[in-house]
Structures are given as structure tokens and as C-alpha cells.
């Protein structure tokens, strides 16, 4: 065989283990051709990251490669087995012939060095460039990856850039030596959806220009459908299914792939918009809420800086329904959730009203006295985002579940215990788990426990702050189903916060899209998804990647809507420092637009 027909990288029978424990990667095989994109797909614990890191031998210290070969076949030299190279030989491959980008760009760039110098280092190390000629090349590359002012970016420190821009800098660093293989380990997971779409497009464009191959590690089948030629589905360190993307995604043969595809949330493409009805039985209402955060100055006597996180937000949650707030990081959606529960004090001026029962007099959540506050805390509970930090590692499940009852002094010990067992069964867990500790549970199970704790006091309102964002796809679906089920069983009302329109599409009765602290569009989900008006909503919908090979991203829509609010079409654009008013364009459909 000649070099043109052999794959660029062929991995055979790879097995990796920690210490003397049983292997966590077993018999993994895959290969990648020049110019091709291979996606390694899997959920947490599937071993996808370990697999790709083993190629450059950047593994945790106790990990051992038990067996396997990884034959790398560069253009200029003879094929080599990456696993049998010496450290010194491997250094010549790393960053030069094969380079890597990581999930969290903040952690992969040194905070003490200017970005330009970090990127130029690759050239001075591997290619023997002088500093001046390296700088010219780096600036050229920065322009290519989309920096508006590459000269300025060259001199910037990592903390001066946003997440997306940092990831672009990482890509520039990885690309500068024109590698033949780029390993991208979840490069877009930490980014907002609109930024993700743009970064994916950038990687694709660069790949076409340079003809490099890309190994793309991800948990997101939407990303796979959009970018990969070949897919390799991993589960618990084993390959479940692999092959060309259109076949694996289009006609999956393995049960696991099918399950993953079924669990991928999707935005409905066509639905009959239902007629809007006025809210007759509200449970929670926010009116004209503003929140300004004062960031403390570094010195005792220094001046404080103010940031307005929420601007004039009004919304009404109907009893027994789900009101969803969607927005990217920094949109102020979590602040709204905290204000709604009285955990954060809003600025003076707005009102938060809570109706305990239909037709009752509303209480003002911002100004509760002690007994009202205790009553409200029993009525309204929160489900948190991170299932690993929301349960105390030192408490047994029974203590976690009975803690709310004890705080409010409800029931005897025995009754509390019975209640805990009952709650566990409600969320689909077994009551013999009462004496277990939270760390024995998986993320999905822990999120169920967190929901069970929120239910302990029989609340009527649950505020869910991104309850599924930290979970795997298949688990996310189960938790959403559970949330729907308990909502209908107990007549709960939800204020549901998410960054993912597709998740919300399933559960919400009303959706508000937030951007920079303001609601830009609000409607029932079928109206919002089928007939979005606002450019930002359109961008969010367009940036949602679906596990469907025939649907590709419309990047123009994304770039337009996700850009600076000043650049939106005139009717929607920001004038000076304020957006147009929120007007009802048709019954039940609110848009920030100049009438």
C-alpha cells in the first residue's frame, strides 16, 4: 500500500486502564483518512476523552496503555506507532504534526502570557522561526480565525477575551503549524449555542483550506450530524457502532445509538400555532423587575462599578403550567430565577406577587415578614443545575430528604422517614437507597434526588435553574419526563430556566427569550418556533444543531442575531443604549420591535 491509500491514523485494539484496575477502554478500533472528520461520540464515562488524549499520551498519571497501536502516517516521513515513540520523538509530533484543542479555553491558555506569544511559541519551537516572522504569521492566522483586530489580540491576555474568542485563539494556536491531524476535545461544549455554531464553521473552513483531518470528540449528536464524515459511538470504553455519519445517524443499527438519537431534543418544525389565551389563574408574577449588581472595588475606599443584569422584566407564571426563560450565559436568566424566589433582592420599583391559591390575595415576595417568608419557602422550591454540588457529600440520602421537614419542624422522626421513602419512589428510585451517600449515584440519579428534596415540602411552584444542563443526553430526557410527570401529578407550576431552546420546546407552555437582561421575545412555544420574529430568537433556533444529516446550520442567521444588538435590523436594533419597547404583535406574542 502506498501512503495515499493508507489511513492517516489507524488505531487498533486500544486498551487503557488505571493502575491495576480493569481496563476502562477496551479494544477500541478506528481509523481516519486525510482531510476527513471523525467524531468520537459518547456520554460521560464513555472514555472518549481518554481515548483521544492517549494518542498524544497526555493522560492522567496513573493511566496505563495496556495494549494497542496507533499508526500515524504523515506525508513527509515513514509511518510511526505513536505509542512506541520516545518522549522526545513524541514532542516533535505534538503541536506540529498533530495538535489538540481542549474544552475549556480558559484553562488551556497560560494566564500570564500574551496570547500572541503563546501561539507564536509553536513556530519558534517547531519551525525555528524568528520572533518577528512568527509574529507576522500569527497575526495572519488570527485574522483568519476571525479576530477583528488581530494586532490587538496578539498583545491581549487570555482574561481579556470572551470564551468564544479564546477558543478561536486556541484554534489559531493549534492550526499555526499546519498540522495534519487536529484533535478537538469537546471544543464547543463550554460555549453558547450561537458561538458554538460559529466555531464549528470555522473549524470546517480551516479543514477545507488545509486538508487536515479532524478527530472531534463530543457528546452532541447534533454537532456530529453537522460536521463529521465518520462516527464512532463509544459507551463505557467500548465501540458500540462506527461507520459513515449518514448511515450511523440516518439508520442506526445498535440499540445504544438509537436510544441516543431518540433522546436528542429537537425543535418542532411545524405545528399548528394554538390560539393565545389570557392568563386567568396566575401563581407568580414579576412586574418591572430590575437588578443592578454592584461589583465591589478592589480597595476599601475605591469606587464601585455597577452592572445591570436584569432590565425591566415582567412575566406571569400560570398555575399548573411551565414558563420557560431561555438565554445564553450572562443574559440574566438565573438572576430572574433567584429574584422570583426572593433569594436575591431586586432593585426597588418592581413587584413580585405570589398567589398561594386561586383568587387569594397575592403576597409581595420582596417584602415578606418572618412568618410569611417561612410559608413562602414551603410553597416555592428550587432545583439546581449541578447535581454534584447540590447534595452535601457528608449527608445520607435520608438526611438530605428529611432536612426540609426538619427545618420546618414537620412530623415526627418516623413520619419524616416515611415521607423520604415515599419521595424516593416518586422520583423513580428505590427506597432501600435511604442509607446511601450521594456520591454513589450517577448524575441523573442525583438530579432525581435533588428533585425529591424540592418536593419534600409539597410545594406548588418549582424554579428549575438549568436542571438538565449538566446531564447526559439520554438522562436529560428521562429527567424532563420525570419533571413533566410530577408537574401533572401534583399540579405544580414551573419557572424553567435553560440555555437550550430544544429542551424548552418539550416542556414549556410559554417561552421568553432573554438577551442582555431583557426579554426580546415571548410567546407560546409553537408560535415561537414556527414563526419567530426577533433576529436573536431566529439565531438561537438556527444555531440549534439537530441530529439529522440533512439539516445544516444557517450561519448567516446565527451571525446576524447573535451579534451586537446595534447591528440587528433597524426595527429591532438598539438605539443608543436602549432596545425598542416590548409590543404585542399578535395576541400572546411579544416582541421587542419598533411598531
Amino acid at each position, binding site marked *: 500500500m502506498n501512503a495515499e491509500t493508507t489511513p492517516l491514523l489507524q488505531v487498533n485494539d486500544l486498551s487503557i486502564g*488505571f*493502575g491495576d484496575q480493569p481496563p476502562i477502554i477496551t479494544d477500541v*478500533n478506528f481509523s481516519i483518512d486525510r482531510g476527513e472528520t471523525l467524531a468520537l461520540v459518547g456520554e460521560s464515562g464513555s472514555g472518549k476523552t481518554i481515548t483521544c488524549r492517549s494518542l498524544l499520551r497526555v493522560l*492522567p498519571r*496513573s*493511566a496505563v496503555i495496556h495494549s494497542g497501536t496507533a499508526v500515524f502516517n504523515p506525508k513527509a516521513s515513514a509511518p510511526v506507532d505513536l505509542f512506541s515513540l520516545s518522549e522526545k520523538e513524541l514532542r516533535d509530533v505534538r503541536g506540529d504534526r498533530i495538535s489538540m484543542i481542549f474544552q475549556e479555553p480558559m484553562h488551556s491558555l497560560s494566564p500570564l502570557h500574551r496570547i500572541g506569544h503563546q501561539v507564536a511559541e509553536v513556530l519558534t519551537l517547531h519551525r525555528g522561526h524568528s520572533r518577528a516572522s512568527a509574529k507576522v504569521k500569527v497575526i495572519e492566522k488570527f485574522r483568519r480565525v476571525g479576530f477583528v483586530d488581530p494586532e490587538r489580540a496578539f498583545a491581549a491576555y487570555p482574561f481579556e477575551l470572551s470564551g468564544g474568542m479564546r477558543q478561536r485563539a486556541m484554534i489559531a494556536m493549534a492550526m499555526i503549524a499546519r498540522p495534519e491531524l487536529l484533535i478537538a476535545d469537546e471544543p464547543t461544549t463550554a460555549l453558547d449555542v450561537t458561538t458554538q455554531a460559529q466555531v464549528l464553521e470555522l473549524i470546517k473552513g480551516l479543514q477545507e483550506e488545509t486538508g487536515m483531518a479532524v478527530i472531534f470528540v463530543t457528546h452532541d449528536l447534533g454537532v456530529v450530524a453537522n460536521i463529521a464524515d465518520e462516527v464512532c459511538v463509544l459507551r463505557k470504553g*467500548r*465501540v*458500540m*457502532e*462506527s*461507520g*459513515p455519519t449518514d*448511515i*450511523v445517524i440516518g439508520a442506526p*443499527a*445498535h*440499540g*445504544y445509538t*438509537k*436510544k441516543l438519537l431518540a433522546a436528542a431534543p429537537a425543535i418542532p418544525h411545524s405545528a399548528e400555532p394554538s390560539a393565545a389565551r389570557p392568563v386567568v389563574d396566575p401563581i407568580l408574577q414579576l412586574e418591572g423587575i430590575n437588578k443592578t449588581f454592584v461589583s465591589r472595588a478592589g480597595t*476599601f475606599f475605591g469606587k464601585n462599578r455597577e452592572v445591570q443584569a436584569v432590565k425591566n422584566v415582567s412575566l406571569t407564571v400560570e398555575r399548573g403550567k411551565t414558563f420557560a426563560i431561555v438565554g445564553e450565559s450572562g443574559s440574566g436568566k438565573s438572576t430572574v430565577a433567584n429574584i422570583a*424566589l426572593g*433569594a436575591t433582592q431586586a432593585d426597588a420599583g418592581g413587584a413580585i406577587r405570589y398567589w398561594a391559591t386561586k383568587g387569594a390575595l397575592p403576597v409581595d415576595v420582596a417584602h415578606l415578614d418572618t412568618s410569611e*417568608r*417561612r410559608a413562602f*419557602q414551603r410553597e416555592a*422550591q*428550587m432545583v*439546581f*443545575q*449541578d447535581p454534584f*454540588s*447540590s*447534595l*452535601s*457529600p*457528608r*449527608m*445520607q440520602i435520608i438526611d438530605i430528604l428529611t*432536612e*426540609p421537614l426538619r*427545618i*420546618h419542624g414537620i412530623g415526627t422522626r418516623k413520619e419524616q422517614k416515611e415521607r423520604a421513602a415515599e419521595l424516593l419512589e416518586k422520583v*423513580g*428510585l428505590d427506597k432501600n*437507597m435511604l442509607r*446511601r*451517600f450521594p*456520591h*454513589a*449515584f*450517577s448524575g*441523573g*440519579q442525583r438530579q*432525581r434526588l*435533588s428533585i425529591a*428534596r424540592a418536593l419534600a*415540602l409539597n410545594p406548588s411552584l418549582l424554579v428549575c435553574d438549568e436542571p438538565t444542563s449538566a446531564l447526559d443526553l439520554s438522562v436529560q430526557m*428521562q429527567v424532563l419526563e420525570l419533571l413533566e410527570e410530577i408537574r401533572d401529578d401534583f399540579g405544580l407550576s414551573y419557572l424553567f430556566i435553560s440555555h437550550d431552546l430544544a429542551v424548552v420546546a418539550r416542556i414549556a407552555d410559554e417561552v421568553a427569550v432573554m438577551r442582555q437582561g431583557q426579554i426580546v421575545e415571548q410567546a407560546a412555544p409553537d408560535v415561537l418556533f414556527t414563526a419567530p420574529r426577533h433576529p436573536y430568537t431566529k439565531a438561537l433556533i438556527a444555531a440549534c444543531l439537530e441530529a439529522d444529516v440533512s439539516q445544516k446550520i444557517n450561519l448567516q442567521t446565527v451571525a446576524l442575531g447573535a451579534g451586537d444588538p446595534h447591528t440587528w435590523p433597524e426595527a429591532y436594533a438598539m438605539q443608543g443604549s436602549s432596545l425598542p419597547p416590548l409590543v404585542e404583535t399578535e395576541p400572546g406574542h411579544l416582541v421587542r420591535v419598533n411598531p
Partner: protein
Amino acid sequence: MTVLPNNHYVDDAPYDPDEDIKSLDRPDLDAPSWLLIWRKFKRHKLGLWSGIFLLVAYLSLPFVGFLVPYTPNERNADHLYAAPQMVRLFHEGSFIGPYVYPITAEADLENFRWNYVQDRENPARLEYFCEGDDYNFLGVFRADTHLFCAPEGATVFLWGADRLGRDIFSRIFYGAQLSLTVGLIGITVSFILGITIGGLAGYFGGRTDWGVQRVIEVLRSLPELPLWLALSAAVPSHWGPVAVFFVISIILGLLDWPGLARAVRSKFLALREEEFVRAAEMMGAKPNRIIRKHLLPNFASHLIASAMLSIPAMILGETALSFLGLGLRAPAVSWGVMLNDAQNLASIEIYPWTAIPMLPVIVVVLAFNFLGDGLRDSLDPYSDH
């Protein structure tokens, strides 16, 4: 393995799409955290052995009087500055059990020093459970039985004798009673202050935090040794050894808390952001309950580790003060007091064994450091590998 056309590979192993959500994901982590910490700590051999050593050392403190042949202030006027005696087993080729050679002092009038001559003819076999000087057993009863002692007419100075002819070996054991416990009392004082003040600063933040931070900075900027000296010079000289001992340990504790307060404060700040604490707040738990039930259990282990690492500082502090003559004073016996005798360069040169009390100081300080390190490394039992 199935390979379909188009290079399409499908795994054949049985697969159950509805995996039981009722089964445990990580059964190995299903244990209270102290057990997980212990499992991890057990693998830290150096820390484990240091811990065992310290445990044995502390447990034997009440029995010191029984374990050693002499009482701390028992003078032996015929054996001033006696050299260490070796315990031997074989005499002229035959096994006669542990014995020592009796020694007699000879004055070297040219160099003004004592020389000791061994009587190699008459090996003196050690006696066991023999009667010696009175001591307080467990601090309650008088007793006079010693584990071992020399027979009539001989002496057993394993590590030599000091300028008054007192057995250094026995005195080191007695000294441990004070030197080891000074750390415990000091750390208790420092703990109470550190946790309270650090906890207040961490929980309330803002101005309280700012104030506490500045106080800590001021305290930390004071030069330690002169401060110790000033404080202990203020202890009235007519107070008894026990009173002085308590005052010294409290002084050490009073000056040690800032480090601990900082650790508590930063841990508090980190834990406050954890969602389980916010969850408790939103359920309506009062600050007191949040601190006791949710915050304290989660950093108790960190506190224990930092305590282990600060006890050596206390022991060294006591040693330094007593060495300078400003800490404990005779007739109290501590390692620092003993080293006070070794201040004189001449005596170290001629009688180097007077400096032996340095060894237990070094050993104990190292042991605490190893133990503390081992604990600190085991504190996060949930991280993998």
C-alpha cells in the same frame, strides 16, 4: 462483531437500553466520608506509620513513670555528666541477658572534666519490675515499681546524665508529658478562636471580613519571637510550673489562630457557593443550622489536617521559649528546659549527649508533618485515582 457494508461496524455484545436507574452507579463511594478518607489514608504509608507512632507516644504519656528507670529530678551526685551506657547481652562470649557495666567517675583535673571508667569485671544485669523512686502513677496513686532498673551499686544511664547527674533518658520521657501536651492545649485555644473568627468573617463577609483580615495581617506582621518573649516575661515569676505551663500554651494558641482563621474563612467562602448550601438557605434554614449541619461537617476534616500541621509549630514554640529560659522553668521538665542545659557550647563539646533532647523534637515534628500531609492528601475521597 458485525461489519455491515460501507465499513459500518456494530458491536454484538448484549445491550440493555433500559438500564436500571435503581442500581448504584459507584458502589465503591457508598460510605460515610470518614471511611472513604480512612481507606485512602491507609495507602499513605508514611502518614499511617507516623500516626501510629504518635498514637503510641500519646497513649504512653500517663505511664511514663513506670516505663523509665529514674524519676525526673532524681540526682546522682556521683555521676555528674555520666556518659551513655550501652546495654549488652553477651559477657565474655556467653549470653547472660541484658546488662550494663557499672561506671565510676574520675576527675580529670587537667581538663576539668569527668571521665568515666567501666568496670568490665562485674557486669550488672538489669532488674525488672523493681522498686525505685516514688512517682505519680496516672497522676493519682503513688507507685514505685519501674519496668527496669539497674541493680544496687550500678546505674543505667542509657543516654547519659546531665550536669546534676539526672538520667537524660528518663527526663526525655517525662519531658514528653509537657512538650507533647503543650501543643494540644495550644491548638484547642487556637481552634476555638480560629473557627469562630474565621467563620464569622467567611459567613458574613463584607466589613466584618475586611476587619478580620486586617487584624490578621497586623498580627502576622508582628515578629513572633520577641512577642512570645514579651508575653512570657509578663508571667509572674512566683507562679508554679503548672500555672506557667498553662499560660505558655495559651500564649502559643493566642498567636497561632490567624493561620487557622484564614483557612476556615476561605473554606467557608468556597462552601457558601456550593448549591447544597444555597438549597438549605432557600428551604429556610437559619444561619446557625446551615453552619452546623451543612458547612461544618464538610470542612471538619480540613480543620483536623490543618491542626495536625500546626501542632509542630506549638511544640517548636515551647521548645524555643524554654530554651531561652522564658518558657517553662525547672523543676518542670520539658524538652526545651532540658535543652536549656545544652546552651553552653563547652558542655556540648565535652558532653554531647546533653543535646539528645533535640532528637525527640525532630522526630515528633516530622511525624506530625507526615501525618498532616497524609490526611490532607486523603481529604478529597471522591476524586478518582
